[in-house]
């Protein structure tokens, strides 16, 4: 019983392996009283989740991050040109992706 109790959180968040999940579900089916423990764990997790701030950025903030990140990606993820033609190709790509 204790071994299965320890697996409740992993079962609820889906991090239990396939084999362990079916073993766990089989155990719950044969022990209906165990469902109350799962419910109490579920409630506890949902309480804890509500205590973590879930803040979304404002429209302006999101736009500003997107443009900053886009600029970083284009500046930092630059290939080194191996030939003159590649250099031209990259400049061309840079120009069309502006």
């Amino acid at each position, binding site marked *: 019983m204790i071994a299965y109790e320890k697996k409740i959180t992993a079962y609820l968040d889906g991090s239990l392996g396939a084999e362990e999940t079916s073993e766990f579900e089989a155990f719950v089916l044969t022990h209906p009283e165990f469902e109350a423990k799962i419910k109490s764990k579920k409630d506890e997790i949902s309480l804890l989740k509500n205590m973590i701030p879930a803040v979304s950025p404002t429209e302006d903030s*999101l736009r500003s991050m997107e443009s900053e990140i886009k600029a970083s990606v284009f500046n930092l993820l630059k290939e080194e040109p191996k030939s003159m033609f590649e250099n031209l190709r990259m400049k061309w790509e840079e120009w069309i992706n502006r």
Partner: protein
Amino acid sequence: MKRKDFYLAVQPLIEKLYRFAYTLIPDDLQAEQLVIDGMNAYLLKERKSLLKKEIDLNNKKEVLLFRRLAFKGILRYMCDIGVRRSTQLSEQLKVGRPAEYSAFYSLDPKVRVVFSLRYDSQFTVEEIEEIVNVPRYEVIEKIHNGRFLLMNDLNQGVTL
């Protein structure tokens, strides 16, 4: 990997990264800056492997897999920078932090990181171990501490 493909693959992560940053630093501008700094650090460190990587944007499974990998990679740098920054700014940030989350923000930044990775981003203990680069027993200890302190705070609120 082309720069455009990389950007398209990671763009949907920006909101999630901000949400995580805010759990570390409860200030709009600082959280925004943490996302950008984490991304820059990731790009600088992983540049070579990213340039070598090929990704087919039409293959949903491949994109999702890459996105998950990039998410963990960016979070790794954000955790590192964010914990230091959060400690440095702790006094200044006390004033502006949201009152409804005071229990959460009273936790140590390292505990906060692990706790939100576990319960908000829903990473497994193994994944958190990889992201924050601390041994598994420490991850479990921090989750346990956070849970204990938050539940304690909640119970105190009920009894008052």
